[in-house]
């Protein structure tokens, strides 16, 4: 079992490297992190917060857009493309289990995303820590950001693969991936903001709204990171970070549920594909 997952994993990771996905993702994430660090360095002296923490706050917000996009782009074609090319039929004709194929692909692409995050954010974090005065809190904040960013990447790799297995056609998978990104990353927040404006103060604002926010993996990721930073300058939905009715770790639990659900649904769907 483990050797078969390992075989799928190795092949998939090799492709992520050859397709320059890792390098591209690293470059994009690194450049954005660096730009935000420079911006934070300009502000830092006035706000009495160290630069690393300040950069972590803005990077948490930006990562919500970038990391799901990178993860979805890496994964959406992984199963549908192989169905169309006919190579999945060959794979499924071997004694490999369907779920092993799904999990192998998931692990490889998650590793690819995480390596990009590790290199990009790690390098920029070290540069900031060396060039500015940084306390222990700042370093922990940064590490927490890197870790949860990896988790966010994993969830969206899972969503991308699930979409790929559900559609089985590259064109439809691409459309679905774009739709998922728009829905979870952009439209969901707009809809929630509209709802809270309309509802005003009341049961909805205090008891329903926070749960709706962490039901979305992108928001849960951002909320967790911001809630863990005392001095975070926040606005909009993120203002919730300072008045949460539940401990921030609930957001992590929400991320965990998403991860398990996408892998479970994706694996189950892969079992029913007729290649």
């Amino acid at each position, binding site marked *: 079992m483990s*050797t*078969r997952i*390992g*075989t*799928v994993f*190795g*092949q998939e990771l*090799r*492709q992520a490297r*050859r*397709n320059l996905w890792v390098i591209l993702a690293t470059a994009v994430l690194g450049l954005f992190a660096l730009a935000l660090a420079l911006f934070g360095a300009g502000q830092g002296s006035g706000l009495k917060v160290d630069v690393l923490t300040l950069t972590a706050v803005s990077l948490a917000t930006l990562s919500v857009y970038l990391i799901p996009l990178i993860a979805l782009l890496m994964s959406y074609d992984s199963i549908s493309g192989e169905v169309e*090319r*006919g*190579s999945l*039929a*060959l*794979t*499924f*004709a*071997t*004694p*490999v289990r369907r779920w092993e194929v799904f999990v192998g692909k998931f692990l490889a692409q998650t590793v690819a995303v995480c390596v990009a995050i590790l290199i990009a954010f790690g390098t920029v974090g070290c540069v900031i820590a060396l060039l500015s005065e940084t306390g222990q809190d700042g370093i922990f904040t940064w590490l927490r950001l890197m870790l949860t960013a990896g988790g966010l990447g994993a969830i969206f790799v899972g969503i991308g693969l699930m979409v790929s297995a559900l559609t089985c056609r590259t064109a439809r998978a691409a459309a679905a991936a774009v739709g998922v990104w728009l829905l979870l990353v952009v439209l969901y927040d707009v809809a929630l903001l509209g709802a809270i404006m309309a509802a005003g103060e009341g049961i909805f604002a205090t008891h329903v709204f926070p749960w709706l926010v962490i039901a979305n993996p992108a928001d849960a990721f951002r909320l967790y990171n911001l809630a863990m930073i005392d001095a975070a300058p926040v606005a909009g939905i993120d203002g919730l970070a300072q008045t949460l009715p539940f401990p921030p770790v609930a957001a992590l639990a929400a991320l965990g549920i998403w991860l398990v659900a996408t892998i479970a649904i994706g694996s189950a769907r892969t079992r029913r594909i*007729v*290649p």
Partner: protein
Amino acid sequence: MTETLAIKALCLSFGGQKVLDDVSLSVQPGERLALLGHNGAGKSTLFKTVLGFLRPCSGTVAVAGHAPGSDPAREAVNYLPEVVSFQRNLSGREVLSYFSGLRGTPKAEVSDLLARVGLLEAADRAVGAYSKGMRQRLGLAQALIGTPRLLLLDEPTSGLDPVSRHEFYEVIADAAARGSAVLLSSHGLEEVQDKTDRIAILARGRLTAEGTLAELAHKAGLPTTIRISARPGAADALHGEFGGRRINGCRLDLDCAQGAKVDLLARLGRHQDKLRDIDIAPPGLTDIYRHFSRTGPTEDQT
């Protein structure tokens, strides 16, 4: 039984339409069976059923005695689909190592397989740079991993030039000599003549014939055509005497059953003065194939 593949009374429908109807066939170890049929005759569907991708409505399929899709069945069967394109940025060796890993066979076998299909030199080049023939040979090498007990090859030589095709069948013959049962599909009898041991013809989901080429020719009982060129002005007289079909002013085609050939020729000999030439055309492979694949209302769907 010792059959590697045993299919009995297999039926399969898609959306109320029967794609396979009462198909029974078997392949012994070391035997090569060609499955012929038009596009849409059900060949690929039959393969997918043997692989366990599709569930039959009725009938049974046994691969080395096991249900399709079960572990021992998947270990026993190797497959080359009609259309496959491997990842362009992987090398031939990496592609084979991948499938070798999924089958749990020793990696050392990979170089040997690449040599058997003549790809050893190109083994470390990207598949994207391979020619069509090379990619097809890589697909065949993939299908030979782990010395399969049953080889399923779906139109393995379509689009190959005659030389590549010949080499391809040599590799298949070699695999059969090592004990693999081979089931391969094709479009025409010419292609599989002398390359396979038995032939089965599938038309509109039904098996219309099965046997060696000689058996099929005998069973078809197609007439031999005798083509006569008459001397000027004599064609009408010959047509009156022998019947047959007038082709033009001086030519006449006569259909003649196998047994009646000598008798007819002897009768023709008596009209030597009216004849300029005689051609004898025994039924060709195309005629035999068309005879068996032309069942039901549709004709010549190519």
